[in-house]
């Protein structure tokens, strides 16, 4: 459904003429006239109002009874009174009723000082209660989950948390038990409420009933400062507000930005701040001495790093992790091109795309925004699992489907959390993304051999055709949310073919014509993958997607060259390829063979711990300064909320220092100077400043400078026959996924530790039955003599002939089984351990 046109109407509230968009609820519209109507249960983010708390009663001329302002839309000429004695009496009574069972233990309550119930009782209540009977009592506080404490005595039954669970995150876990005055909130059978977005209910709660276990009794509103920034844990780049007390982050709240996060945060973003203050974090520079990393002085670490890079004589490979800011990536690029003289640097974990194809995929005309997902006619989620790869997108997709009737289609190899919301779910064989996109293109165009291509992708022909039909007929606003790993194939030609097929199919659907509300939205594997790409931190692409004079090695080629001794030194910027890139074995060999490895890291993950010769501390999210680029092209600013550990240099200063020490030209004295350097180097970022980016970021596509975007490849795109998925033939295809909980931040944050994933093999029950495997049993997954042990997890939705393992779990990762050279994914055998 496209965005509706909204008329302005005029109504009167408390004698003031106010103009408001038609259909706005009275509680919101009154604010436009500076009239405050108290509310508890009303929260526009939660969708349709329920009118549960009765706090917002107002008198409307022509209606004999008082009406709830939260559920009455304004109409032209409406006359509203919020001040007369009848309304006042109603408000006072409602407050008195709400406080009947409220314990009023404000001094010990964590919400005290920032509590809407306190504020409203003070502003609209009568100040004393006539209630003398005993209040209801519950055991308190109870653990609703390891992250959330619930105090049922304080609950005023506004339903906000239950509505969030039922209608926004749709995990359907929270329910109201009992009836009337005995009602209480909980999960149906009392199990802990663990869900990727559970933390949001604490922010929604208008009283102190749901409080954070991690923030419990840490501070009062007058002890703290809020500091706005952007979360750097995933490409979602949600806007956050860090709560700081005594120069430490003690809590993370959302900072609503409707164009990015819609006011929600995932639990990883909310609690991972704790990993900033653990002993395992790299606190200062370290140098390898007698085979062990030991703390060292900055001078020594910097000079060792300089020696390593110098000794490699230009044969240096560099990797920029997805968590690097634009400034860090840019300085790494300058270090490599201007000083070291090497083009061997990459910011993608795998795969190569030409500058032309990359530019075609990222062109402003083809770009869909996050907000477009809410209003599209149809959305296709292609080879990505939003809840794991970019969690906040999951909520946006659910919102579109639930409230605006967006038709959702999911095409992935692993069953998706969005399947229940999707009109159509298509499965294809793991790793057969290229073949699937070719089949999709044929189905959308109604030409070519859909049956053959679908078979090559291991997908059901009719499902692919139905998907093609649905996308063609849904309407002109179609958004394709596609996962970057579609182009990660070992063979660059396969990745390029997938990209061309995606562009061809999008062209057929009219997504590349610059229509607002339609287009492509990539879900990258790294937080700032888009920014790093646009700066040219790629081996074959220059700043602003220009064609560079010389092409270097990609990630995978760097690993091969390092293992063969052609690349001598490696520079790892916020990335550990052993832990997080595909081809684990290859990277282990590459890092082991390298004569020197310089790493910037927050945690000593396995590759860094074993192979790095110098480790510089990376900043934590709340300490970082710089800019990042959202997958839809929104430049956002990271502002430091707290100081860095004593004596620590920020990454950009370390890189600047390396540039000057190796004979380069220092150009940056502040982080902001690097931003302006970037604005000069990337034509379509021209003139961008921190001021312009502001608090909510700015999409470069909406600026004039976007005219400077280079023309990418344009059609007609010709496709080659895709690589067919291998038939299982007794073995199983290996698919991999990375859970939202798989990151060093989660593993080290005390509150989140319990969520750190353990390896599990997802199997279809029939496949499991053939092998005599039961749910929950230990199994070994073997490929080419390497095995990984896992717990069998039987899912009916899991497609037959495939097994899915998690990545990012050390030597028990799926990446340990993925072979290096094969173009098709590995076949594995699964047997009980």
């Amino acid at each position, binding site marked *: 459904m496209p965005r509706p046109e909204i008329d302005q109407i005029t109504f009167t509230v408390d004698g003031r003429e106010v103009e408001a968009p038609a259909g706005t609820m009275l509680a919101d519209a009154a604010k436009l006239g500076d009239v405050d109507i108290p509310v508890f249960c009303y929260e526009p983010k939660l969708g349709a109002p329920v009118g549960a708390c009765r706090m917002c009663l107002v008198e409307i001329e022509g209606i004999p009874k008082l009406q709830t302002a939260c559920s009455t839309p304004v109409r032209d000429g409406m006359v509203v009174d919020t001040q007369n004695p009848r309304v006042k009496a109603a408000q006072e009574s409602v407050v008195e009723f709400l406080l009947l069972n409220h314990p009023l*233990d*404000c*001094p*010990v309550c964590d919400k*005290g*000082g920032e509590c809407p119930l306190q504020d409203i009782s003070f502003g609209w209540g009568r100040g004393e209660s006539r209630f003398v009977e005993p209040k209801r009592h519950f055991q*308190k*506080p109870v653990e609703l989950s390891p992250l959330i404490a619930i105090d049922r005595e304080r609950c005023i039954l506004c339903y906000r948390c239950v509505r969030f669970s039922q209608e926004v995150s749709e995990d359907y876990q929270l329910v109201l038990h009992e009836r009337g005055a005995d009602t209480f909130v909980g999960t149906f059978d009392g199990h802990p409420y663990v869900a990727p977005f559970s933390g949001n209910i604490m922010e929604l709660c208008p009283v102190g009933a749901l409080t954070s276990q991690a923030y*419990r*009794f*840490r*501070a*009062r509103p*007058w*002890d703290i400062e809020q500091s706005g920034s952007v979360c750097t844990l995933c490409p979602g780049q949600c806007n956050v507000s860090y709560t700081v007390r005594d120069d430490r982050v003690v809590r993370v709240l959302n900072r609503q930005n409707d164009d990015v996060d819609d006011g929600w945060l995932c639990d990883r973003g909310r609690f991972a701040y704790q990993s900033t203050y653990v002993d395992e974090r790299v606190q200062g520079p370290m140098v390898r001495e007698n085979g062990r990393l030991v703390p060292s002085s900055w001078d020594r670490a910097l000079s060792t790093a300089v020696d390593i890079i110098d000794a490699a004589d230009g044969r240096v490979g560099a990797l920029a992790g997805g968590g690097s800011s634009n400034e860090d990536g840019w300085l790494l690029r300058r270090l490599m091109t201007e000083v070291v003289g090497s083009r061997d640097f990459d910011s993608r974990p795998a795969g190569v795309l030409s500058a032309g194809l990359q530019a075609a995929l990222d062109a402003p005309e083809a770009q869909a925004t996050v907000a477009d997902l809410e209003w599209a006619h149809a959305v296709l989620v292609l080879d990505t699992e939003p809840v794991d790869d970019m969690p906040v997108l999951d909520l946006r997709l659910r919102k579109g489907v639930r409230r605006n009737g967006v038709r959702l289609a999911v095409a992935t190899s692993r069953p998706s959390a969005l399947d229940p919301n999707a009109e159509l779910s298509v499965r294809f064989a793991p790793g057969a993304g290229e073949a699937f996109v070719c089949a999709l293109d044929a189905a959308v165009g109604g030409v070519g051999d859909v049956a053959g291509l679908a078979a090559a992708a291991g997908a059901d022909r009719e499902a692919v055709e139905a998907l093609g039909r649905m996308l063609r007929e849904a309407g002109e606003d179609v958004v394709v949310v596609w996962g970057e790993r579609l182009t990660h194939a070992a063979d660059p030609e396969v990745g390029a073919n997938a990209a061309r097929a995606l562009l061809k199919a999008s062209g057929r659907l009219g997504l590349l014509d610059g229509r607002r509300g339609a287009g492509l939205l990539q879900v990258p594997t790294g937080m700032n993958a888009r920014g790093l790409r646009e700066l040219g931190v790629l081996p074959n692409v220059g700043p602003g997607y220009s064609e560079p004079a010389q092409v270097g090695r990609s990630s995978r080629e760097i690993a091969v060259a390092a293992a063969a001794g052609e690349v001598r030194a490696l520079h790892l910027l916020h990335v550990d390829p052993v832990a997080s890139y595909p081809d684990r074995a290859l990277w282990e060999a590459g890092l082991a063979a390298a004569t020197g490895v310089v790493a910037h890291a927050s945690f000593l993950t396995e590759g860094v711990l074993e192979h790095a010769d110098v480790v510089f501390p990376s900043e934590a999210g709340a300490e970082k300064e710089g800019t990042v680029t959202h997958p839809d092209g929104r430049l956002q600013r990271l502002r430091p909320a707290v100081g860095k550990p004593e004596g620590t240099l920020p990454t950009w200063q370390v890189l600047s220092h390396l540039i000057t020490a190796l004979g380069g030209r220092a150009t940056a004295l502040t982080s902001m100077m690097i931003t302006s350097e970037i604005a000069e180097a990337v034509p379509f970022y021209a003139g961008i400043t921190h001021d312009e980016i502001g608090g909510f970021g700015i999409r470069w596509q909406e600026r004039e400078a976007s005219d400077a975007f280079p023309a990418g490849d344009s059609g007609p795109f010709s496709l080659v026959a895709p690589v067919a998925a291998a038939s299982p033939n007794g073995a199983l295809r290996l698919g991999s996924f990375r859970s939202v909980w798989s990151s060093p931040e989660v593993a080290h944050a005390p509150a989140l530790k319990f969520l750190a994933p353990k390896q599990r093999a997802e199997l279809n029950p029939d496949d499991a039955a053939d092998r005599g495997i039961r749910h929950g049993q230990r199994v070994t997954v073997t490929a080419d003599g390497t095995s990984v042990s896992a717990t069998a997890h039987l899912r009916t939705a899991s497609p037959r002939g495939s097994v899915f393992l998690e990545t990012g779990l050390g030597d028990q990762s799926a990446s340990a089984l993925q072979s290096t050279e094969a173009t098709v994914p590995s076949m594995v055998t699964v047997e009980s351990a």
Partner: protein
Amino acid sequence: MTWNPDSDVVEVARGPEPGGLGGAYRVFGETLRGLKTSFMRVVEGTHTVEYPEEKIPVYPRWRGRHKLHKFEDTGLEKCVGCSLCAAACPADCIRVVAAENTDENRVSGGERYAAVYEINMSRCIFCGYCEIACPFDAITMGSDFELADYNRSDLIFTKEMLLAEPMVRTPLRAEGE
């Protein structure tokens, strides 16, 4: 414009000189009138309070050094670490860090207690707002006003110091005194 020194000369208008008898009165009469007060005090004898050996008792509502209180029956601290005193403090001299009571370590009556409670006496202006703000009467202003020290950091009073029964150094004025 050049400076003209003459333009800055100010003419002072003086009253008439008294001269003669009037002048004599001004010299001796007025001086003696002033000295009368001094001579009258001389016959009264000394009035000096020999502080610090001798102290003037303070009134019951005197606002001196703070005290934190415990329940007499259970021995638990009255303070629950709500931090309202810190919010009320206009000099921003109170710092409270709360923590949660456990069954093994029960410090106060409620769910929370003050793990850190510090008053920076070098900043305190003794306004007594903390006492008024406290919902549990856990903090009161005592009578002690002798807080001088050689070191600023010694003027940060911790919870243990505030809970301890203070040395009685200042006499409290008895009823009707």
